[in-house]
């Protein structure tokens, strides 16, 4: 499901089946050098492709929420706190699994203070998403993520 009215309508009718929430985490900044800015937009694109595919193949069980974006310069401790506030919101619904998908290694260090499950993926700083090589890498990582999520599912 996506953050769309039509999907929400379906969600409201079948909540108990859609037990997995995915929230992408992406830093935002406009003040970096050109390289940084290119990298940020590239990451955003890759994240889009990623979550789009995930949602498409697992529409009936995964709810893909809008991206949580934060200033690249902000203190991660504060963000952890804010994100936990998100988690509280999600938990008012019958979500059993809450996954945060990110390329930003900063979260990794604070993982233990986070409610919910952090899925951190390493990614090239920059690239061309339309290139065959890049596509392969993305599809590959996509598969790994799906396997991981399915592993969580089968544990219950």
């Amino acid at each position, binding site marked *: 499901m996506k953050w769309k009215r039509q999907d929400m309508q379906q969600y409201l009718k079948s909540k108990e*089946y859609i037990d997995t929430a995915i929230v992408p985490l992406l830093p935002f900044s406009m003040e970096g050098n050109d390289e940084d800015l290119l990298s940020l937009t590239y990451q955003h694109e890759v994240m889009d492709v990623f979550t789009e595919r995930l949602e498409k193949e697992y529409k009936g*069980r995964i709810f893909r929420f809008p991206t949580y974006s934060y200033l690249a310069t902000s203190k991660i401790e504060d963000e952890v706190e804010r994100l936990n506030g998100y988690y509280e919101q999600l938990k008012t619904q019958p979500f059993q699994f809450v996954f945060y998908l990110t390329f930003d290694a900063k979260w990794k260090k604070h993982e233990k203070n986070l409610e919910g499950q952090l899925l951190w993926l390493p990614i090239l700083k920059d690239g061309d998403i339309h290139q065959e090589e890049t596509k392969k890498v993305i599809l590959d990582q996509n598969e790994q993520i799906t396997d991981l999520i399915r592993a969580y599912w089968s544990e219950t």
Partner: protein
Amino acid sequence: MSKDKKNQVSRRQFLNYTLTGVGGFMAAGMLAPMVRFAIDPVLQPDEGGEFVSAKISEEDITTEPKRVAFNVEQVDAWYESTVEKVAWVYKQEDGSIIALDPTCTHLGCFVGWNDNENYPEHFYCPCHDGLYTKDGVNVPNTPPTAPLAVYEHKIENGILYLGKAIPREEA
């Protein structure tokens, strides 16, 4: 001076008029197609009839379901985009080809063929254990309530072309 004022339309009024005008225009724009459809069903756009290549030749299709991906141009009210579609394609007993839409009829996850050891030779939905037999018919007492949809298909120059996915009613 005062005579002038009478004819003068204040800026606020003017904007108000224009807004109402635009609003009315928009409402008309929304109503017009509805009215048209109500009057003349022939005018309704035909969604079907477009076939795209599944990039697989007829001879490569066996009795074992194979996953093929193909791209279709999709236009809805706001977006125009290329969407990747997936089909499970195989030859039936009688040699005819069938292309199943992998979209689970429960809540829309993609089903896989023969990929769960507990359910060999079945289409299996990883989301809530939905099951379908090889012909795409849902197994009773699993969440799906209808068989998998079937794509329209045709063979041209030995290549498989797929069209619209046609939903099937419960048998």
